[in-house]
């Protein structure tokens, strides 16, 4: 009798622990799936000394396709054999200009203003304007396009570099749009195509 009783008790205890174990597993599952053992962007990490999961490439690393010598030099540095380039690395189409305008309005207008006069909102709020407050001066009108590309990439004076958040092709598109802005101040009515000219003349009348 005693033996059977003990066995039954043992069975019950077994069941209880099995159910409890399953419950524990369920709890574990939920957390495991919600918070998986991997790093999401910007997650902190104890493993590395600086506490970040995002790692910087080893100094001197060149991403595949980003070689900045030879034919790629112009696209990525705005230079040809070390000298500021006078030409664009790809044809400037209407599409490029429109892309340039959109990127200009995101990254440049806060300081340089919508038309490049250097009267953006951040300047109005107290950012000290740089010596040339406008793109529409002779020195900048005659600067090579590579000069603008370099300033966007590496910064200039109080202007911080933008290379880390504006891709090279977008930087070139912005340069093209700056050129268009400069041209717009130098253009005469004869530069406007005929149908558009009629419209403008009509409006001004």
């Amino acid at each position, binding site marked *: 009798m005693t033996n059977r009783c003990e066995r039954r008790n043992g069975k019950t205890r077994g069941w209880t622990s099995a159910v409890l174990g399953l419950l524990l597993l369920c709890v574990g599952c939920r957390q495991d799936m919600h918070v998986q053992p991997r790093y999401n*962007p*910007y997650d902190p990490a104890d493993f590395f000394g600086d506490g970040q999961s995002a790692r910087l490439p080893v100094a001197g690393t060149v991403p595949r396709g980003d070689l900045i010598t030879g034919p790629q030099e112009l696209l990525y540095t705005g230079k040809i054999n070390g000298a500021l380039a006078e030409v664009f690395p790809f044809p400037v189409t209407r599409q490029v200009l429109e892309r340039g305008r959109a990127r200009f309005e995101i990254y440049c207008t*806060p300081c340089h203003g919508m038309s490049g006069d250097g009267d953006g909102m951040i300047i109005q709020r107290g*950012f000290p304007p740089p010596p040339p407050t406008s793109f529409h001066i002779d020195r900048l009108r005659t600067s090579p396009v590579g000069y603008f590309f370099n300033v966007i990439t590496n910064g200039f004076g109080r202007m911080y570099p933008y290379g880390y958040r504006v891709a090279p092709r977008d930087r070139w598109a912005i340069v093209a749009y700056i050129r268009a802005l400069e041209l717009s101040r130098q253009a005469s009515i004869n530069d406007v195509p005929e149908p558009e000219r009629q419209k403008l003349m009509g409006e001004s009348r």
Partner: protein
Amino acid sequence: MAQIFHHSTNTIARVSIFGAVILIALLGYVAEVVNNSPYVTDVDVAQPQPVPFSHKHHVGELGVDCRYCHSSVEVSSSAGMPPTQTCMTCHSQIWTQAAMLQPVRASYRDSKPISWTRVNAVPDFVYFNHSIHVAKGVGCTTCHGPIAEMNITWRAQTLYMRWCLDCHNAPEKYLRPRSEVFNAFYTAPPDQLALGRRLVSEYNVQKLTDCTTCHR
């Protein structure tokens, strides 16, 4: 033969049967209310941050584009949090003595990123991608709410799956023209459904409701 049960038993039986139904329904209702309350969802709860960054000031008053800081939103799953260098682009020159910006300056000086408190997050088994949503005409404020009015940022939506599916089932209710995606002051036109249907076909928006669209 004497009755086994007292008369009142009838009432008790009725009350307990209907009471049980009502109690279960009530419990369900309470669970639903709690589950949708800010206590659980964090919706409308401004999260304390190491620096009291104001979207209201930067977006609403200064008109800075979302992408000026969240620069990877069009090309990546993550919208991108700005490195301290982006803050210092302006704050190296303005508000340079402000005490509230001390952590920003310290972060830049020591090359230690600021540890922001996350406001919006989905569980790890959800693979959300910002770039496809903005490319198909889902505006920032559709999910992130009136960001241009937030002094301290709060979560605007529950991010529950039923909320995702509400749009995935009927995207025409929310889509806007691509040119308006980053407009923080956009209001939907009265003929939203007509516009939405046009955009669904123009942008080739599919009703992706397979489990594997988000869960991989």
